[in-house]
């Protein structure tokens, strides 16, 4: 991958990771077990996350999907997630 991308053996701080995944497809998992999948608009140092509906994209991920126990429960255009609920943010492949 590009810029601060995944080059094995290289140190990558959380700040670098956050920079690298902006605009990418991500999986956000909350402590409660709820998952969100979509394109990351922006985030801050508290891991607050802005999820925005995207108009572009080669893939059916223009809105955000909320999964509870693996089942699709909701779709959001825009949404804000408060960072204290976030367990992890993971880059995901478009498969």
């Amino acid at each position, binding site marked *: 991958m590009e810029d601060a991308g995944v080059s094995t053996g290289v140190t990558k701080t959380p700040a670098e990771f956050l920079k690298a995944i902006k605009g990418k497809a991500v999986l956000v998992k909350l402590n409660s077990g709820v998952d969100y999948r979509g394109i990351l608009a922006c985030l*801050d140092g508290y891991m*607050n996350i*802005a999820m925005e509906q995207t108009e572009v994209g080669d893939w059916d991920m223009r809105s955000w999907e909320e999964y509870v126990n693996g089942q699709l429960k909701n779709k959001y255009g825009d*949404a804000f*997630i408060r960072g204290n609920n976030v367990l992890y943010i993971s880059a995901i492949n478009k498969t």
Partner: protein
Amino acid sequence: MADDGETATVKEPLDLIRLSLDERIYVKLRGERELRGRLHAYDQHLNMILGEVEETLTTVEIDDETYEEIIKTQKRVIPFLFVRGDGVILVSPPLRS
């Protein structure tokens, strides 16, 4: 982050909330609580003042005999309230056009 006034861009997550001022928003809270109301004010903790609020409480009970899950929702209307930010999970503004 610099405060760049009333621009309609989302440079940091809280901008999304700023753009929702005076709009009806959806708030998901801990403890299976949801609020729908008009956002009057907020701060960096996501403490919020909401007006014309509909609160939805969802509870799951297990039937003693069939062990089926019974999902119950209770709703009530509250004219005006303060939300403490630490209970907030998600805020969804109305669709922007």
